[in-house]
């Protein structure tokens, strides 16, 4: 009897342990050894895959052409080869960068950003707001509540706009796609000019003293809410934050990326060279404003639009025109303006759209002149 009782206790103890293990696995708290090996193995696997993508994709295209019987150098073969190489490349880059940016974002909260900006004067505030806009995490549809929070805690209106313009425009997905498809120069130019537009447009809106064009109920709001009790994060939590960001963002955009690259691949293989030159080329002065006009009502995911645009560039479209189009699609969207209408009077929305569009036009023309 006694032996059996102790046996039971041992059994219970073991079950308890097993239960604890399961519990910790469920919560994502891996044992240190597993965490260390995952931390070493995953980057190694990533690097191996990334550096061998070209031979892998060539091999795959070759093998497929043998099976399906098409010419790997023909229209279809070229398009397919482009798709097989570019899609995993962009997705790999996205996973890496979104994870990294996720970790950076775990150090920022909208409340902290707001507190930093509340005490700032205009010019320095515009620069800071544009920079913080790129790293402060907030869900896209929070833009209006965030706007209210900024304005009611005494962040100047122009500074608030710098933040609101840079946040969607200079985002990691757009920059990764530009880097992957155009190279680091274009990605840097895009991020740099995007920041400049956000800073300048916010500054101009501040100069225009538009405060009275906020909806009246906004001005009657009590000063901004208190800090929602901020929690300190450990590194394990920050890593999890990065993983969540990957799941959220890459999980959401990958179909657009694949679709965009597929369309881009089709253009690469089938559309004749210099096809775009006549209406998106440098010589057509009206191409930049036209690109902006077409871009505004489009509320496309940057992820889907950039590969298509890259293919067009290869067919003779001018870089400035292409940049202007992309910025217009991403930074000025009709749905966003409809939401903003709840807090801004029409005149301020008009000024916002006008100032940003002017900035985009300047960027478009400048690049068409320089390159």
């Amino acid at each position, binding site marked *: 009897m006694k032996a059996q009782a102790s046996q039971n206790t041992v059994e219970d103890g073991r079950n308890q342990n097993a239960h604890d293990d399961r519990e910790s696995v469920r919560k994502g708290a891996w044992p240190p050894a597993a965490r260390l090996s995952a931390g070493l193995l995953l980057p190694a696997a990533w690097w191996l895959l990334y550096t061998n993508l070209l031979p892998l994709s060539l091999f795959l295209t070759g093998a497929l052409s043998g099976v399906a019987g098409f010419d790997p150098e023909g229209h279809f073969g070229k398009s397919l080869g482009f798709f097989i190489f570019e899609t995993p490349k962009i997705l790999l880059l996205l996973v890496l960068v979104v994870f990294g940016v996720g970790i950076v974002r775990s150090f920022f*909260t*909208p*409340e902290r950003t*707001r507190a930093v900006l509340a005490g700032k004067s205009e010019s320095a505030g515009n620069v800071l707001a544009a920079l913080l806009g790129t790293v402060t*995490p*907030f*869900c*896209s*549809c*929070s833009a*209006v*509540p*965030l706007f*209210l*929070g*900024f304005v*009611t805690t005494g962040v100047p209106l122009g500074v608030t706009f710098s933040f609101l313009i840079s946040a969607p425009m200079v985002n990691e997905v757009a920059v990764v796609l530009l880097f992957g498809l155009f190279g680091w120069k274009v990605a840097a130019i895009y991020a740099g000019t995007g920041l400049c537009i956000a800073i300048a447009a916010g500054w101009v809106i501040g100069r225009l003293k538009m405060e009275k064009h906020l909806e009246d*109920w*906004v001005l009657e*709001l*009590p000063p*901004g*809410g*208190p800090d*929602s009790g901020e929690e300190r994060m450990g590194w394990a939590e920050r890593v999890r934050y990065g993983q969540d960001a990957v799941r959220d963002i890459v999980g959401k955009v990958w179909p657009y990326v694949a679709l965009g690259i597929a369309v881009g691949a089709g253009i690469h293989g089938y559309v004749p060279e210099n096809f775009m030159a006549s209406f998106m080329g440098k010589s057509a002065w009206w191409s930049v404003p036209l690109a902006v006009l077409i871009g505004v009502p489009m509320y496309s995911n940057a992820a889907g639009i950039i590969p298509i645009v890259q293919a067009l560039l290869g067919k003779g479209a001018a870089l400035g025109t292409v940049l202007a189009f992309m910025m217009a699609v991403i930074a000025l969207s009709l749905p966003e303006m409809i*939401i903003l209408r*709840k*807090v801004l009077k029409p005149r301020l929305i008009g000024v916002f759209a006008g100032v940003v569009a002017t900035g985009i036009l300047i960027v478009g023309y400048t690049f068409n002149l320089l390159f």
Partner: protein
Amino acid sequence: MEIKVLGPGCPKCKQAEQVVREAVAESGAAATVEKVTDVMAMAKLGVFSTPAVVVDGKVKCAGKVPKKEEVKGWLGK
């Protein structure tokens, strides 16, 4: 108990509402859950980042999806 989940309707806001509803159901607390999508109403509650959860007029969390255990804690279970 009166719980309000605030969010204009993005995926994260829906997720927050679901977590809250599950937590209420699992803990068996007597609470009503209401979704608030109007920006003006949110601002008046003093919430400027979404998703947010307000329990009996007090802002419990803002700017993130709460964990189910946290919600149960607010319910006093």
